[in-house]
């Protein structure tokens, strides 16, 4: 069985490799075809010179950074507090953090728009809503990453040790707890980064500049530039996941949303 089984194993692996890599290769080759007859990076040059690209890309970077910051400021203290002081809140909090899994992005934005596009809660046009929404979207990953990190350090003992040395809550959080869960926070941060950078639905329907809607718009009338963007997007995702692997030492996350 061993010999025959190996052949089948190779068969499926090669099939898998073909399926995964052919679209990527096609995209990359396509992106090099902007100049007629010659392989060049013209499409990339066009993209980088397009002010709309710069605006969209930096906008996405901004949204991602802000989302991460809000996430850290909200979820780290919450996870810490739940673990330390209010264990009874645990089930409720965890349930809430898992709701975004159950609500597809399109339904979520549907609810957001309907709720916040009428006075007195007319904030549908505000970037605050977008950041908040992104934070919610990244919540399952960010909160879980932080929680896992907290689980692996003895929160109670560290807190008590710090308190017995005279530390206040702020000091404890920023100089004792956070440095010890640095890896988990980075893990969650990079996942959130990847999610927000690639996110299309929220940005599109809340009408804000972002990378993915820009790319979708470009697909309507350009051929080669979207390919370049796809390559950039893929490289970005790779980079994020790669950093997570290196930094996270195996704490991996899959994103089953945003598509």
């Amino acid at each position, binding site marked *: 069985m061993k010999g025959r089984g190996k052949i089948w194993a190779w068969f499926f692996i090669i099939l898998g490799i073909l399926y995964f890599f052919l*679209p990527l290769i*096609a*995209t990359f080759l396509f992106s090099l075809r902007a100049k007629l007859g010659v392989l060049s990076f013209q499409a990339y040059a066009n993209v980088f010179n397009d002010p709309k690209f710069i605006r969209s890309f930096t906008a996405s970077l901004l949204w991602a950074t802000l989302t991460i910051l809000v996430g850290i400021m909200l979820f780290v203290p919450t996870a810490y507090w739940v673990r330390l002081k209010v264990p009874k809140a645990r089930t409720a909090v965890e349930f809430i953090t898992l709701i975004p899994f159950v*609500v597809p992005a*399109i339904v*979520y934005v549907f609810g957001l728009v309907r709720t916040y596009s009428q006075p007195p809660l007319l904030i549908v046009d505000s970037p605050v809503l977008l950041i908040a929404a992104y934070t919610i979207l990244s919540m399952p990953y960010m909160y879980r990453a932080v929680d896992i990190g907290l689980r692996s350090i003895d929160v109670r003992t560290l807190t008590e040790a710090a308190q017995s040395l005279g530390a206040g809550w702020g000091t404890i959080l920023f100089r004792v707890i956070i440095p010890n869960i640095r890896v988990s926070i980075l893990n969650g941060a990079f996942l959130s980064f990847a999610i927000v950078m690639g996110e299309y639905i929220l940005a599109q329907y809340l009408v804000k500049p972002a990378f*993915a809607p820009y790319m979708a718009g470009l*697909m309507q009338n350009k051929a080669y530039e979207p390919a370049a963007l796809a390559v950039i997007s893929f490289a970005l995702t*790779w980079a994020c996941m790669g950093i997570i692997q290196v930094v996270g030492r195996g704490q991996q996350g*899959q994103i089953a949303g945003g598509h």
Partner: protein
Amino acid sequence: MTVLDAVKRDALTARPAPSKRSWAWLGVMPFFLFTFLFLLYPASTIVIRSFQNSTTGAFTLQNILTLFKNPYILGAYKISIQISLITSVGGAIFGFLLAYAAIRGGLPVFMRVSLLTFCGVASNFAGVPLAFAFIALLSPTGMLIGWMRAFGYNPYFHGFTLYTFWGLSLVYMYFQFPLMVLIIAPAIDGMRREWLEASQNLGATTAQYWRHVAFPILLPSLLGTTILLFGNAFGAFATAQALTGGQINLVTIVIGSQLRGDVLGDQGLGYALALGMVVVMALAIAGYTLLQRRTERWLR
């Protein structure tokens, strides 16, 4: 401050005395407030307005009932369920075979790590860029089509097109396989070599081992992940939108259109549709969780 003072002070603060319980809950208020405003309240809006008549505001079950009668909506559900079923079952089968080949197929060790790493990335590579990648590959001017035409065969002359149901299914597989691989890999790792040996020792052939031992053990995991994959496909939007421009009427696409303008002719229907989606997703996640728990119990 003396050590005694410090000890006294943390005797008061470090251990939550019962009377201080209400104050401690204050610490999680920001979280509850935030999630209420930006998650629970909008979600509840959907639920409540599904049961409201869109003009009068009175309570009604009509919206929900219409879901099952409106042919346009039924059609959307049918297509969504079809594509979710096909890509979840197909993704589960191929993902399992891929994972098993890499882990137990007698291949070099780096295969397993490479596959898992790649799947970690590929499962996130969805939406607009994925749609474009497949356009680059399989559109009438795509790379693969070009190769096939070089051999004298043009699939587009034989009825193939990327921008249909089957094309979309093919694209969906790109994030379905990897998700399956990632989730089933630990289950495959958990298959102990002694089980095979014990069954052989008791007279079983390899086929009998698979039939009586291996598959039954893996089944809850396989089933659970398939259900998860179903939910995954059901809720997908961006990929379909980017690939087909909204031509294929998935439930998600209809909801998207509803956002732009009332295509359904009744606001209440839009909410009911959204609610229906959430129900399907919730069932999928619940099914997955239940089955995973069964697996974990066995593989302890």
